[in-house]
């Protein structure tokens, strides 16, 4: 303690001296208490000065003391004042000090709190984050409420770094006040939903520390976590993988329960869709015939395995190990093999890593089924003289476990070299390993035995002793043909001194005395002579030998036996005295009453089972691989054992999460409530809707709508009314079937009850459903869940349903219910980008073929998400060559864009053949203006100036939101940001369908479900700036309509009003 401190102080003194502080030079050592006090006075002075560098110097010295583990707590008051210092380094060091001592000086620590509270509002995210860090690290229970507030603010902070820090603060707060758990879990729930890779790792860490058993929080984030996993930082990956392992064990079926079938099914996994649909059918089947059915892996299970696999390539050993244990615990046995290579790679790493990896490999190799995967790497486990002892023993263990008929010769040859090592412990371990190989592989038992007997003549006594012990065990397995070995060993008893070995020899001679009838009594004689000088275990064995000989050969040994027993009677060790007493009663009954004596032979010379030489790692597979508990082979605190796979898979649909699309939910409602015979289903649905997690169900049902929407655009246009009707019928029946299915599902699962019918269509391939609906229309009961897809398509298509009419049929109570729901919906996902309602196929001319000398170009707004950047409007350019000769090197030349605008070019077209045409896509960030983008299209030898002027409606992206959100947002955008106008709509077009269609044609907006009749709402946001756009069309009496447009961009506002007017008034 003192020398290190001395060097710090000496060094500090010299530094301080250079800053020109005279007092400091006087205290060179700082070893005494008096000196300490004095020094602290200096420090206090320095801290009180107003020079930053003096303060810094003082803080550095104090941190030096903290680092040394010296007590610096009496400086607390002086230090804590400096928490307001402007100098960032002083501040940091004060933080370090504060975190260390605040616990001890709680009252004074409170002085600093105000500073942190202020810093929490700082515009600099680093300062916000570090304020939160320190605040949460000060372990002062009084400030728990303050921390809680700060935490709640921070989890919604703009900066992911602050949110990450917030995640770290959760366990700190929890350890300070466990009563906050419920609130903290809510916070964790929020953080788990975060999509930033920086945050999720820490969020899962907090989850693991607080509530690892709350799997319900993971369901909705499961897929996201799987998909983000590769991009999360390494430490987060480890935590997430470990958590997902446990999750998988609770949610998926054991992939190895039916090995054979599982293997056959593997072919399907490549195809996601197919798998999915099958999986659902299989789910249904399961209801009827639970036991015998082929195992199908849950697609989510597969997703996890697929997404973790690349991480085996990580440079971080902890990540590799985490993936390895994941595969070991949840993957089908046939796939576990691929982790072997990665684990073997880790053996190149630092010694400590080797140690941990090897002990895990040792456990793996004890399991027969997975042992094979390490066999190709056998040579990687060869021991090197430079390995530390613990690594060597582990390697031996593994080599022994891996020994098979084919590899045993290599291994034995290797063992031979080890036996000559100068490290005695290692030699002993090697001999034991040879013994184990011999016992497990019968082909080589003889060879091994001979080898071991050879070792008996080794000069090193430890080698001999260990060999004796091992040979004893081996002989016990097949004692018949080895009397010469026993003889040989009996001779050794004269020379060998290691007690264990002597004991082994004696036991063996006694046990097989019939094979060495001459030697055994002689041996006993020699032993009796030296009895009092032996070790305890040897004495016990001498007694055993005496007893056994006395039974088999009483003539020669009776007296000897008596002698030995007498000696033992006065031994110091009570075990030996007891044993002697016990044996005496058995072998030489004083009276003739001895009932036991008759059975003495049975008792002593019963055939004994051979010892099983097993790996010491045999029982370690009860622990989760890679865990601390596994390493130390005992339960570490906080270890929770991996649960077993469930017998029946829990509902897989709980993991479905999608973008909420409220109008689809409405259509759902409509069909549910419409036909009389369906009344009871609809009832049930309402019920479950209102009582269960409403957000979830609405989002899921709406999802299906959105999907079908985008997929079946063309189809919906052709679909006639009749078609639609019949589809709807099919739909209602299918909903009935699905409903019954869900109700037949466990009642306990009421949360998800409303979901199964809506969920599965999601991934179902459209073509398939289309073909399947038609024939099944009659047989209502058989209509599969998949068909729902179709109905949603038709009802939401063409192109959108009338959102208003959807609610007509609903009871008022339900309507209000729904309203309530959508208010509750106010989460981050409430406003989300969705697919466009309508994509124009008409293109505009960019370059006429006359101007372009045979080359023409058209452009079209595709309304998708731009592949280059989310702030760009995607534009599709189509070049057509009207000449006969090819045009080459078509590209974009000079761009004369407005300030701020950017244009992503297409890759150069090397050549466009005569008469050919080609489409390319570009992205333009219009910066939310309708300024044209001017640029040049160049060919090999010409340049043409062109410009793209976006129609105002193309600057938007359709977004979905709930009605309540819409009105809330609208109320924020009043005054200057609101523009309105009136128009009269031709009566034949005054219906919801046309209005919606026209609106979505005009601008890339999505309808918002409306609870009022005659009011149509549409929402969008600008592509570049993300500014919200809200359009309301209120149709009044006599076909007149008022249009209100709310948007922060006033120019756009007024333009849109004009265009909407025009569009709606079209005849």
């Amino acid at each position, binding site marked *: *303690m003192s020398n*290190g401190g001395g060097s*710090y102080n000496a*060094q500090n003194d010299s530094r301080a001296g250079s800053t020109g502080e005279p007092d400091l030079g006087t205290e060179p050592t700082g070893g005494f208490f008096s000196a300490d006090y004095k020094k602290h006075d200096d420090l206090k002075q320095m801290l009180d000065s107003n020079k930053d*560098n003096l303060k810094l110097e003082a803080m550095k010295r104090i*941190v*030096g003391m903290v*680092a040394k583990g010296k007590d610096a707590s009496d400086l607390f008051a002086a230090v804590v004042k400096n928490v307001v210092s402007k100098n*960032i*380094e002083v501040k*940091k*060091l004060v933080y*370090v000090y504060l975190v260390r001592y605040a616990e001890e000086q709680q009252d004074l620590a409170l002085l600093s709190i105000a500073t942190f509270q202020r810093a929490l509002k700082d515009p600099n995210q*680093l300062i916000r984050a570090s304020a939160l*860090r320190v605040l949460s690290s000060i*372990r002062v229970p009084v400030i728990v409420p303050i921390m809680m507030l700060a935490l709640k603010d921070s989890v919604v902070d703009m*900066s992911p770094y602050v949110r990450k*820090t917030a995640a*770290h603060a959760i366990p*700190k707060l929890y350890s300070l006040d466990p009563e906050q758990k419920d609130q903290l879990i809510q916070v964790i729930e929020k953080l788990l939903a975060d999509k930033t890779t*920086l945050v999720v790792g820490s969020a899962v*860490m907090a989850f693991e520390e607080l509530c690892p058993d709350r799997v319900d929080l993971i369901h909705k984030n499961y897929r996201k976590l799987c998909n983000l996993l590769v*991009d999360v*930082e390494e*430490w987060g990956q480890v935590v997430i993988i470990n958590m997902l392992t446990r999750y998988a064990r609770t949610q998926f079926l054991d992939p190895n329960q039916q090995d054979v079938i599982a293997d056959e099914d593997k072919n399907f996994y490549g195809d996601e869709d197919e798998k999915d649909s099958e999986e659902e059918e299989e789910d249904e089947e399961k209801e009827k015939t639970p036991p015998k059915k082929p195992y199908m892996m849950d697609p989510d299970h597969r997703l996890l395995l697929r997404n973790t696999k*690349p991480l085996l*390539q990580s*440079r971080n*050993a*902890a990540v590799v*190990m985490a993936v390895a244990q994941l595969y070991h615990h949840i993957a089908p046995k046939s796939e576990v093999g691929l982790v072997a*290579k*990665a684990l073997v*790679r880790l053996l*190149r790493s630092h*010694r400590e890593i080797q*140690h*941990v*990896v090897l002990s895990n490999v040792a456990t793996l190799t004890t399991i027969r089924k997975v042992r094979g995967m390490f066999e190709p790497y056998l*040579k*990687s486990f060869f021991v*090197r*003289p*430079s390995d*530390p*002892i*613990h690594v060597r023993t582990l390697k031996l263990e593994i080599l022994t476990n891996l020994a098979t008929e084919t590899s045993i010769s290599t291994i034995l040859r290797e063992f031979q070299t080890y036996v000559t*090592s*100068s490290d005695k412990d290692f030699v002993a371990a090697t001999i034991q390993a040879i013994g184990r190989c011999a016992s497990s592989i019968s082909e080589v038992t003889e060879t091994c035995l001979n080898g071991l007997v050879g070792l008996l003549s080794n000069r090193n006594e430890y080698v001999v002793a260990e060999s004796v012990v091992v040979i004893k065990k081996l002989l016990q397995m097949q004692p018949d043909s080895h009397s010469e070995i026993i003889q040989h060993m009996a001779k050794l008893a004269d020379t060998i001194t290691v007690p264990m070995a002597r004991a082994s020899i004696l036991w063996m001679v006694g046990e097989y005395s019939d094979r060495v009838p001459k030697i055994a009594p002689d041996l006993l004689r020699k032993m009796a002579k030296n009895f009092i000088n032996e070790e305890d275990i040897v004495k016990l064995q001498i007694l055993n030998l005496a007893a056994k000989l006395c039974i088999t050969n009483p003539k020669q040994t009776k007296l000897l036996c008596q002698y030995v027993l007498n000696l033992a009677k006065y031994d110091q060790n009570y075990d030996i005295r007891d044993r002697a007493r016990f044996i005496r009663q058995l072998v030489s009954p004083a009276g003739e009453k001895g009932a036991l004596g008759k059975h003495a032979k049975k008792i002593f010379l019963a055939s004994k089972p051979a010892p099983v030489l097993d790996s010491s790692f045999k029982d370690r597979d009860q622990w989760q691989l890679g*865990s*601390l*508990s596994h*390493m130390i082979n005992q339960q*570490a605190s906080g270890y*929770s054992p991996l649960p077993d796979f469930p017998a029946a898979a829990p509902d897989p649909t709980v993991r479905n999460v999608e973008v909420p699309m409220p109008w689809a939910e409405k259509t759902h409602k409509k069909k549910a409530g419409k036909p009389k015979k369906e009344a009871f289903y609809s009832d049930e649905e309402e019920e479950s809707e209102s009582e269960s997690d409403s957000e979830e169900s609405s989002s899921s049902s709406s999802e299906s709508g959105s999907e079908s929407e985008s997929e079946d655009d063309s189809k919906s246009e052709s679909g006639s009314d009749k078609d639609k009707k019949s589809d709807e019928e099919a739909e209602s029946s299918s909903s009935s079937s699905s409903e019954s299915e869900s109700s037949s599902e466990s009642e306990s699962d009421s949360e998800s009850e409303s979901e199964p019918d809506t969920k599965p269509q999601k991934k179902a391939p459209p073509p398939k459903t289309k073909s399947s609906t038609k024939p099944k229309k009659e047989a209502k009961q058989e209509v599969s869940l998949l068909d729902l897809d179709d109905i949603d398509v038709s009802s939401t298509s063409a192109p959108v349903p009338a959102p208003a009419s959807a609610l007509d049929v609903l009871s008022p109570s339900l309507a209000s219910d729904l309203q309530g729901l959508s208010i509750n919906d106010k989460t981050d996902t409430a406003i989300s980008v969705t697919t466009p309602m309508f994509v124009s196929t008409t293109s505009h001319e960019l370059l006429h073929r006359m101007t372009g000398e045979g080359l023409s170009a058209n452009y079209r707004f595709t309304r998708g998400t731009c592949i280059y950047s989310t702030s760009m409007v995607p534009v599709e350019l189509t070049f057509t060559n009207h000449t006969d000769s090819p045009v080459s090197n078509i590209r974009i030349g000079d*761009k004369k864009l407005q300030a*701020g605008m*950017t244009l*992503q*070019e297409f890759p150069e077209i090397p050549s466009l053949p005569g008469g050919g045409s080609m489409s390319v896509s570009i992205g333009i960030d219009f910066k939310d203006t309708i300024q044209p983008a001017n640029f040049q299209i160049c060919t090999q030898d010409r340049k043409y100036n062109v410009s793209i002027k976006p129609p105002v409606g193309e600057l938007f992206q359709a977004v979905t939101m709930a009605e309540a959100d819409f009105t809330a947002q609208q109320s924020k955008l009043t005054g200057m940001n609101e523009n309105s106008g009136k128009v009269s709509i031709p009566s034949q077009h005054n219906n919801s369908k046309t209005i919606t269609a026209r609106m979505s044609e005009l601008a890339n907006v999505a309808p918002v479900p409306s609870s009022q009749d005659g009011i149509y709402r549409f929402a969008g946001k600008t592509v570049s700036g993300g500014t919200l756009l809200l359009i309301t069309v209120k149709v009044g009496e006599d076909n007149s309509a008022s249009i209100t447009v709310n948007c922060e961009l006033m120019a756009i506002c007024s333009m849109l009003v004009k265009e909407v007017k025009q569009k709606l008034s079209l005849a």
Partner: protein
Amino acid sequence: MIHSLFMINSAGDIFMEKHWKSVISRSVCDYFFEEQQKANSPEDVNPVISTPHHYLIHIYRENIYFVAVCTTEVPPLFVIEFLHRVVDTFTDYFGDGGESAIKDNYVIVYELLEEMLDNGFPLATESNILKELIKPPNILRTVVNTVTGSSNLADTLPTGQLSNVPWRRAGVKYTNNEAYFDVIEEIDAIIDKQGSTVFADIQGVIDCCVKLSGMPDLTLSFMNPRILDDVSFHPCVRFKRWEAERVLSFVPPDGNFRLISYHVGSQNMVAIPVYVKPNISFREGGGRFDVTVGPKQTMGKMVESVVITCAMPKVVLNMNLTPTQGTYTFDPVAKVLTWDVGKINPQKLPNLRGNISLQSGSPPPESNPAISVQFKIQQMAVSGLKVNRLDMYGEVSKSSPKKSFTFEKYKPFKGVKYLTKAGNFQVRT
């Protein structure tokens, strides 16, 4: 996770401690000392020690034990890997991670530890981010800091922390753009007494020194990527492209880093470039030592920096040898013989011979010591791996929007160097 960290030097002094949660008394280290006393050598201490209330996980590097204290279940590799990362960072900052370096820079060490872990969970471990948060010490900066009063600490969040390329900082600018790639392969081998190969294996790494402005995007392709059997990547490498095309595509970190490390498939025959002909014998009171080294399969390259070390049995008292080339030393305390051979001249094979004297009275050792060999061969990768080409794309100026989408091809200096050396190369005698 990690509760506290103690640094213990070889003398058994706890010279630094850091706690991330409440303070744990340093007496917890007594369990460690107990365990340490049982071990024969510093390496032999079991890295994971269980005590009644705590779990001690340590690494031993630079003659220091870094002992992490954990209180609950945590993956041991997680802690070990982190501790190694800590030492790597120290080495990166101070040139070496030894005790004196740590003591000299204890403030920075403390600041680093504070940044790297928060509440026991790793926060920022990427060297590039740390270097932006806390600047490494150098003499010039120390002078400047004393004059201007500025500090080593950044007051803004490093850009890398938030970007999706956390390993690279933004706004890097160099006048000379250069990228160097060192393909270094190590041969691990065990050669038996007769000179035949028991086990041989090639492990390779590609270390890079990349100093390029902006956000360069590099693509490195090999002539023969198939020989790479098992690869582990720096996080910057795009795994998908490697899977699909077997090219390394990445946005490099700034400065030195290890791009990939790989293992060459065992089906390939490994060329062993040197042979060692040992002839060691012991008898009562002494022995003979005669070792010859020669080139084997060197593909026409010179074998350089050959060093032969041999840990002699404990009974060896001294050795009296004559080398035909190079110098030899025998450490009579550690009983290690080191022969620095230098280059191998195929015409005149280096040889070291002489007598061994043993402690009188003790029996001669039964087994001969193993010999480990070090060597280097420049300009050759023993696996035959060859870099095909390196392409670079760089986004030069993100500040001016006009240019932001013009990808400009760099004209940097690029170089690839090959080196083969001995890894764990041991000859049994």
